[in-house]
């Protein structure tokens, strides 16, 4: 049983979002990078739990990124996972990235591919579906629960206004979110072990980028809050009804 866990780096959730070069580049000055929480807390931890139940499970991590992603890969390896593959590319196009992951997936013959539900920076929500299409596997997105019985996965996934339980035979691609597992903190033994775990760097295969970011914008600043006295809630109701036309 082989699991491929896709991880990516994102700015720490408290990072200030600013842009340089005429609003075409994210300003990385002073930014702390973390493992995308959906990848770390949910997909990776769930993969580790599966390995804890069955020691024959192998967990491989894959990331598409430059050398600066290595610290977060080491951190992911410290949580668990046997080895990591970094595809050496800085691309931000989802299709290009998915094509790289699909290539690794095909070579490795994985039974299960986990992604996070989205990354916190580009909020694309598209890598899992694209990889699934490129490797011709079923795809279950937005999983909130994942169980495995032999070669059948039972997955609870979010649908609009509720949840749905689905069964599927492996191989399958699953995107994970809250519910699938609980966040863990790496321990000292894991951190030591991660230093010597294999981290293979491979060059990207040829693939097209289908989109480019031409520029960024910051949202317009709020005009400022209108405070209403707690003894006068009728005034708030009036403002919401007449001024904001929201109720």
């Amino acid at each position, binding site marked *: 049983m082989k699991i491929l866990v896709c991880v990516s780096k994102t*700015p720490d*959730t408290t990072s200030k*979002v600013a842009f340089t070069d005429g609003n075409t580049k994210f300003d990385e000055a002073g930014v702390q990078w973390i493992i995308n*929480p*959906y990848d770390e807390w949910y997909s990776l931890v769930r993969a580790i739990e599966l390995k804890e139940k069955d020691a024959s499970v192998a967990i491989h991590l894959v990331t598409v990124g430059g050398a600066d992603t290595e610290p977060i890969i080491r951190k992911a390896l410290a949580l668990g996972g046997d080895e990591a593959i970094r595809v050496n590319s800085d691309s931000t196009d*989802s*299709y290009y990235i*998915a094509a790289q992951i699909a290539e690794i997936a095909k070579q490795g013959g994985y039974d299960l591919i986990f992604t996070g539900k989205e990354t*916190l920076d580009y909020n*694309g*929500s*598209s*890598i899992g*579906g*694209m990889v*699934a*299409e490129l490797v011709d596997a*079923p*795809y*279950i*997105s937005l999983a909130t629960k994942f169980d495995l019985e032999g070669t059948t996965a039972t997955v609870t996934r*979010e*649908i*609009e*206004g*509720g*949840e*749905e*339980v*689905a*069964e*599927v035979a492996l191989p399958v691609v699953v995107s994970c979110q*809250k519910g699938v597992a609980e966040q863990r903190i790496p321990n000292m033994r894991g951190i030591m072990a991660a230093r010597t775990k294999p981290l293979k760097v491979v060059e990207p295969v040829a693939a*097209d*980028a*289908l*989109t*480019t*970011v*031409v*520029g960024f*914008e*910051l*949202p317009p600043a*709020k*005009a400022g*809050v209108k*405070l*209403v*006295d*707690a003894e006068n*809630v*009728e005034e*708030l*109701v009036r403002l*919401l*009804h007449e001024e*904001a036309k*929201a*109720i």
Partner: protein
Amino acid sequence: MSVLIFIDHADGHVKKSSLEALTYGAKVAAQLGTAAEGLLLGTVTEDIAALGKYGVSKIHQVANDTLNHLDTQVYAAAIAEAVTATGATVVIFSHTPTGKAVAARVSAKLKAGLVTGACALPDTSNGFVVKKGVFSGKAFANVSIQTPVKIISLNPNSYMTVAGEGTATVAPLAITVGTAKIKVTAVNKVSGDVPLTEADIVVSGGRGLKGPENWGILLDLAKVLGAATACSRPVGDAHWRPHHEHVGQTGVQVAPNLYIAVGISGAIQHLAGVNRSKIIVVINKDPEAPFFKAADYGIVGDAFEVLPKLTEAIKKMKASA
């Protein structure tokens, strides 16, 4: 050349997010001087010709009941075939659980560039550039799609539904429907409640409400407003509320017309999931709570006193309106 809009449905009804997508797609088509057409996989009980009032001239229907359950592989194959058969050059989805999963597959299948979570009409004056939220609502990116076929998934609540006049012709579309590998064994809908991502109004509670036993006052307010309910992450983590109500960077992202935050401090990770709301109201007893900086209206006060009064005042307003 046409704009093809994917029409999603559940329980026999077309989803609200799809009505927004139809309105949006019709506008994109007008901008490009071409026709807007809908694509419906499966069957619904309502009159689909009436969807013409959102600006689509034709609806292609693959009336196969196996399509009433989502298998992304089967859907993607059917949609890709429909795109080719209808000669569509722009395909519109809603950025909902179904749309997110399917749009990505169709994009890879057709090698057609995809922008997810679009929040405005594309700029077609020079190429094809779509605006979308990035960094969890803290910024926007303008993304250019370079491929001949372009795919957009539209964020719910970011484009207002406009119904005009007109009926669409409904044309059956003969395409191969594959065999689903995914078997749906149970569907659990939160019945009676408004789905969070579709709601016009969201009332949300944080740790300031002290415990699950105190949620009654918040539910009462939600009820008079016909609002969906949400919560901050610690509230979900402590199981005071079901985890699917957790909004924020790591939870659900919402963009309602009105977001009312009660006893929530307004941490940056919370704001990331709600800052696309049109109007934000904050009720917090701490005047220094960071949420007030992101709010349009606010009351500094104790939620336990303010909420019941607010609910009564809204009831009165509704009765007299």
